[in-house]
Every structure is written in C-alpha cells, then in structure tokens.
C-alpha cells in the first residue's frame, strides 16, 4: 500500500475544510445543502462484508488478511449493502423531511469525526481521498451505537462553488460483518 501523494499544504487544507463542512451539514441535518455537494453522476456504494475463509496459499503474506478479501463490492458477484446513484440519495434526502419517515421521527442525533484524510491520487481536476470516520448515533427509543468505517472518495474540483469540490464517488467500508446497527441507510 502506497503513501498518500504529496500535495501542497493549501490543497490538503482545502480538502479538509470540505470534509469538515460536509460532516457538519450531515450532523446538523442539512441534507439538502449536502445534496448540493454531490455530482449528479455520483456512485455511492456500501460493500457487504463477510467473515472470509483464509486462503492457505497466502499464509505468511499480508494478502492473507487483506480487507478486500472480505468485501462484496459493486464489481463483484455478491450483493453490496447499497449501490446508489444521485436519484437514490435524493430520495433519501426527500424522505428525511417528511414527518411520516417514522424511523427518523423524532430524528436520531448523530455526531461524526472524520479523520486520517489522505490524498491518494491527484489529477488535474480530481482527487482520490481516503478517510476514516466514527459516527455516534442515538435514536430515541433505541440503543445508541457507533458506526466505524472508511470512505474512499473521488472529489472533483468545483471552483465555482463555495465548498470548492463536488463528491463524485464514495465507497463506504463498514467495520462489521453482522450488522448490529439499526440501519446502514444513513448518509455517511
């Protein structure tokens, strides 16, 4: 696995500013403003994760424990937990502001920390960014729980917007095989 690419301090700061803004919008339930950060061609994937069989031929090698062995991704033959486009995310945002979306009425309280923000690839107009998150979730009438995971994003430069970037792709790798969470339908 390679080190992140060397970018200028300004670029790193711009990217981190974007992620802090995004996290704040989501925790303050300003999903319509969040939607405006998305590219309309966004692909939003949450792979499923399994307890994989160890391949004996890989013993002694890091590949034996590769996280990728455990994932059912968009290009695989299993079934990811979510494979969404802009329309799906728009539906989720619309649903959030309907009083009869019962699982969010009253709404859950969320607080997320996004950290370890690494620029893994840079082109003229886009960046591949990996980050980690912890999200605390408290739903009325339910257990509180912690969502833990990694995000692999593609963001494109959008100089004409305040945020400076648009989110064009996101893969959310959750740290669970058995899902002991009320839903993984959140906006991560």
């Amino acid at each position: 696995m390679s080190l992140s690419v060397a970018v200028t301090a300004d670029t790193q700061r711009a990217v981190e500013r974007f992620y802090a803004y995004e996290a704040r919008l989501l925790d303050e339930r300003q999903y319509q403003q969040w939607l405006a950060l998305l590219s309309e061609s966004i692909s939003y994937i949450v792979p499923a994760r399994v307890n994989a069989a160890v391949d004996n031929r890989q013993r002694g090698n890091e590949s034996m424990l590769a996280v990728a062995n455990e994932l059912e991704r968009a290009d695989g033959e299993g079934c990811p937990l979510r494979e969404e486009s802009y329309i799906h995310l728009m539906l989720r945002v619309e649903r959030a502001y309907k009083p009869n979306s019962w699982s969010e009425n009253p709404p859950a309280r969320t607080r997320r920390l996004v950290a370890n923000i690494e620029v893994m690839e840079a082109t003229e107009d886009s960046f591949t960014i990996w980050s980690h998150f912890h999200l605390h979730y408290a739903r009325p009438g339910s257990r509180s729980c912690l969502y833990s995971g990694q995000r692999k994003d593609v963001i494109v430069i959008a100089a004409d917007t305040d945020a400076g970037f648009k989110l064009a792709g996101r893969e959310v790798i959750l740290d669970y095989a058995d899902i002991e969470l009320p839903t993984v339908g959140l906006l991560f």
Partner: protein
Amino acid sequence: MKSTQALVSDDASWVSRKCWSDPAVYQREKAAIFGRNWLFLGHESQISAPGDFVQAYMGETPIILARDEAGDITACVNSCSHRGLPVCRADHGNARRFVCPYHNWSYTVGGDLVTIPQEKALAQQPDKSLLGLKRVPRVESWQGMIFGCFDPDIMPLDAYLGDMRFYLDAFFDRFPGGVEFLGAPHRWLIDANWKLPVENQLGDVNHGPFLHSAIIPREAQDAIEALGYSVVTEPGHGATLRLMPEDAAFEEVAWGMEGMGGILGGEEVQRYLKEVQDEAAARIGPLRARMKGLTYGIYPNLSFLWSNTAFKVSHPRGPNRVEYWSWAVVPAGAPESVKRTLRTNYSSFFGPGGLLEQEDSEAWSQQYRGCAIDYADDRPLYYGLGLGEGGPHPDLPGTVSVTANEHYARGFFSRWRDDMARQEVGV
C-alpha cells in the same frame, strides 16, 4: 407460563402479548417450532462444487451446509465432538477439511471425523465413525431450495410446501435456468421478536401506504388493492400477489420492471426483462405469466419478497432479538451485468440499508416494547380483520381473499398454537 392454548384464541383473532415477549414462550418455541418444522438452509447455487460450504442456522443452532466430496448435500451442527468448539469459522468457502482450533481434530466438509492428532501417542484409538459432527437427520431440496429438519419423522418437503409450490414456481420457472442467490446473506440484528418480520412478509401488505407513506404513494397501494389477492394455501404459509389484466402492457406485467434496476437499468436490462416476459406464458402458463407476487411466507420463518426479489430468514435470538438474513436473488441465466443491475431492486429498498426496511425494522423493535408491557397483558392484540371472509378461487389454489384480510396472520398463529400445544403434551 399460561397454557399456550390460552395465548391464542380459538379462531386466532386474539393473540396474547406474551407470545411476543415471554422468555418461557421463547424457550418452548425452540423445540416446538424450530425442532419440528422444515427450516430453510440455503440454495444449491451457493454450494455448486464439492467442498463448497456455507454457514446457516436452524433456530439458534449453527449449521454447516456443504456439498461433500461425493457431490451430496450435507448439513451438520457446527460443533466439535471433542470439546464443542465451532469447527467452521468462515461464512462460506471451499475446503477439504475443517480443522478444529483447539486440538486440531479434523473433519470433512460433510462432517466425518478424519484425524485425531493425539491418538498416535495412545494405545487405544477411538472409533472415529462415531465421532463425526452431529448430522441434521432430514435434508431435502425442492427447486434448488435446501431445507433441513431436526424431526426425523417430518413429512416430505414436497408435501410440506404443498400448494406454495404453485406460487413459488410462478417465480422460479419464469426464468430459463431458474434463479441464483447472490453471495453471502446480509445479516442484521434487530431488537425484535422473530415472528414479526415473518408475519410482515407473510401477507401484511396493509401497512404499505401507512408505515411507508414517505416512500410508497397512495396510488401504488390502490393499484395493489385493486388487483391484489391474499392467499393462505394452508395455515402458516401464504402469498400475496397481483393478477394483472390480460390486456395489460408488457411494462406493467413483466417481472422486475418496477424495481430500481428495471427503471434505471437502461436498454440492456429492459431488453432482457422483455425477453423473459415474452416466454413466460410458455414456461408457466398464461395465468401465472401475468402474476406479480408481492410477499410469500413459508412456515415457520422463510420469506420471499417477490416485489424486491429477496429471500429472507428470521433466525430467533431470544424473545427480543432476531438475526435477520436476506439474499438478493436474480435470474441465473441473465448476463452478469444485468444481474448486477437487478440486485439493486433489493438493496435499494430492503436489507439493512434499504429505504423501506428502515421503517419496518423500527416498527418491529417498537412492537416488542409494546408487547413487554405487563400491565397490558389483559389486552391481547386484535387479529380479527376479515375474520370469516375469503374462500376458494377458480384459478388460485388456497383460501383467497382481499389483501386487507388478516387471515394469513390467523393461519400462522393457529398453526403456531398447535405446534406449541403438541410440545406441551409431549407428542
């Protein structure tokens, strides 16, 4: 615990809250329900080659479902004969042997004990043929669906499924090559009783426009009510479906067209769905070619959500906890790219990230809370909607009624009561 007879009224129009919340009721269910009925284990497409295995559950009992070296399907309890550890630690895979971590006894995927490393140093060798993994005594398949039963005297699977086969075939035989289960199931722990997801998928299309009104428009539900039927083939099994008019346009009749995959899938997917529909009448007859299923249930805990093409199993984990498994299913003969698109018919709306099921799982957990209120024990739940209504239909086997009739739920609870009573008197 009260006698289980008292938990469900004679006509099953009243169901005690204790059925949903009493730990003693749950303890009895383990033997009375999960010990004596056919339970779904998996689909043959998941274990197609010798050595393939998947983990499954029968109630709380962990099971290894495998295809052994001879190509036969086997089901064993995942617990070593030496000190009881699980010998299989992966969700699925292909193996020659399962090696128990503790002392490395090793077993074939079919559960036969092959080696005891310690025996070389000893004068007497144990009889390994007596020390294999515990076998599930009955394992049978129908249309690729594998079931197991702990009761060696259970009726054959075919007879158990009965007229549900007519409705299941309307789906399975629609596609040349049948269907395929995609990957590992999504596994989701919900703070709810196992019977509510079952009841929901057995016939409760009535909650659609209410619980799901943020997503399902009233007009969609009106169409379901106008063309819909609720069928109980026998108590505990059931199907809800639409019979589309004979002159309905192909887009309205074809399976998959109203799912996200069909809508967003583009020309390749649309063409595939049209091909399937064009041949449907030849494969399953004209009546079933215009049948569009909604929900199906096989007693006690298997569900099929036709409208979003998923099979689901509700594994009990105590009175207040369920491990809910679901698999996306797609036509086995479809091109890979089409399969990938069609699987989103399921994942967009159902499963742990589904837009609709987030409301269902919330309702299921809140129902447990309501049923655990001791003070309300004298107020059983009302199951009487449509009592006495419904009857035979010229084309559809079973007792057929409008979708608002809760006869499917009364059927489930009358069978459940009989199973529980059988255990009570020890027959």
